[in-house]
């Protein structure tokens, strides 16, 4: 030891056992807390599956294609709700993707000064912060009444198409789709904007350098380079739309009668759960748990697929 006079002043040259114990316990604690995520995830599957067991045994896979939901005869099938879930999400994305990506392009190009673009970007993100129950309230009292004449016009003109075959009179699938569009737009816009912003400027300069116009370079260079992020955002939005409950429940009409028409009341799995769980008992609870399990599996697949796509595509462009 280089024995300098002050050496004795350092009393902790050797770590006391308590110090090591704290270090070890902390490591153990945070590992356990991290493991809790896996445990919760596992528990969710377990609880829902166990509670759905009776309904699975009784209805089997027929549950997925049976469109009756009758608590008095205890005959349950989730087809209407599953169809409604998939239909509303698909239609919402169909409308939201072009709008969202178009807005993202608007926000990353220099059409207007960047100060205003930042403000608009922040505003769009604020839209994501509005609680879905408030959007539902707004949909009931503002969106649906305002929209009804327009939908009625479409019905009169195109009523021969099965999708528009009923007279819109209030809550229904279409208003639910539109409120979903409003809910997923901020996700798609924000993530697409971030992905476009991350494309290196050299790429655009290279495109301009060979004489490409603004929009040629957007379509041929910028969008392909940002595609992994955009698809990731779309998948995230899809997951959100599939599981979205409140706004949809409040405006979709909650009808378990299957119809092809988009203007008639319909149902989604989460709306079914929100509406019936409170008052259900016996087999109905198990049937609802079965429906919840179906919803979980669908969103699980979408989310895993989203993560996989982002990983695959980002490798390609990194």
């Amino acid at each position, binding site marked *: 030891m280089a024995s300098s006079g002050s050496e004795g002043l350092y009393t902790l040259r050797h770590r006391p056992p308590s110090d090591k114990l*704290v270090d070890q316990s*902390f*490591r153990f*604690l*945070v590992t356990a*807390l*991290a*493991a*809790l*995520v*896996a445990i*919760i*995830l596992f*528990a*969710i599957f377990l*609880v*829902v599956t*166990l*509670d759905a067991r009776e309904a699975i045994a009784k209805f089997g896979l027929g549950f997925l294609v049976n469109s009756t939901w009758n608590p008095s005869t205890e005959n349950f099938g989730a087809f209407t709700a599953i169809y409604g879930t998939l239909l509303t999400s698909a239609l919402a994305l169909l409308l939201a993707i072009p*709008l*969202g990506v*178009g*807005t993202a392009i*608007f926000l990353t*190009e220099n*059409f207007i000064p960047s100060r205003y673009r930042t403000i*608009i970007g922040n*505003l769009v993100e*604020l*839209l994501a*912060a*509005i*609680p*879905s*129950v*408030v959007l*539902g*309230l707004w949909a009931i009292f*503002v969106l649906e009444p305002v929209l009804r004449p327009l939908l009625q016009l479409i019905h009169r003109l195109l009523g021969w198409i099965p999708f528009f075959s009923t007279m819109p009179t209030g809550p229904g699938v279409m208003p639910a789709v539109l409120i979903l569009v409003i809910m997923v737009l901020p996700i798609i*816009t924000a993530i697409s904007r971030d992905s476009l912003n991350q494309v290196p400027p050299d790429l655009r300069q290279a495109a301009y350098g060979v004489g490409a*116009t*603004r*929009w040629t370079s*957007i379509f041929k260079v910028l969008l392909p380079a940002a595609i992994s992020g955009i698809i990731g955002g779309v998948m995230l939005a899809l997951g959100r739309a*599939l*599981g979205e*409950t*409140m706004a949809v*429940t409040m405006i979709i009409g909650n009808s378990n009668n299957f119809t092809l028409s988009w203007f008639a009341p319909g149902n989604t799995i*989460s709306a079914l759960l929100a509406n019936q*769980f409170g008052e259900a008992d016996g087999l109905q*609870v198990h049937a*609802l*748990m079965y429906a*919840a399990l179906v*919803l*979980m599996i669908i*969103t699980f697949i979408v*989310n895993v697929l989203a*993560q996989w796509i982002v990983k695959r595509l980002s490798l390609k462009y990194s």
Partner: protein
Amino acid sequence: MPSPSADLFFRPGLLRNRGNQLLTIISCLCAVIVLIPLFCVIAYVLIKGIAVIRPQMFFELPPAPGMEGGGIANAFLGTIIVTALSCLFSIPVGIGGGIYLAEYGAGNRFSDFIRFGTNVLAGVPSIIAGVFIYGLVVATRLLFGNSYSAVAGGLALAVLMLPTIIKTTDEGLKLVPQELRWGSLGVGASKFVTTMKVVLPSAVAPIATGIVLAIARSAGETAPLIFTALFSPFWPEGIFKPIATMSVLVFNFAIMPYEAQITLAWAASFVLVFMILGMNLVARWISGLAKR
């Protein structure tokens, strides 16, 4: 015949220039269409809310069906209680899990698995969180024989907040330069001291931002609460009893045929939006502080 350089002049009639202009207009239209609902929702909620809100609403209970007046005091209190409970459950777990991922789990299989699990949990629909807690603690009366309760509601919200908090902690800690950890370890600090005294304090701003945003998100959540915290027309009776929240109040009252209830639904929406926008501003302010 123009001089050769005239060939470089911009010709608006050219097909590609027409196409470019059209696409530019379309993209502007997209932005406008996206902004319209935003303005409509916020403007409508604010106008409607300001028109109906009265200070007494924060001190009165909701009226019985068919009666006039009343307030949202119990729901306001309930939202604060349930959100606080959810923070109590999710913040320690989330920060701890995030610390594991960023500080202890570098490159190992288990942390990859936990990261994947966090992403999956983030994608779990909010209503499923409610169903899960219903099946786990409400139906089984796990919490000292109580069924619907504020604690159950808090747990359901915590399930939703957890992945956000883990992710922000993980990402916030990763922003801390590696040299800082070396510096602390280099003077003989243990990993625990390094993490708690040096690394975590350096990442407070991004973590706090993420947590505030997670709280804002959960304060407006309804789906996980409708069959965990349920609702109550009375004052909160303790954390093991059903409790009113503003979001569930909006849902329940929106479809009632009574004017007084619908008025209260608008008032509660106004308060919720106001609170949540406020928290978003706070989050912005915190992350702005960090940048300085």
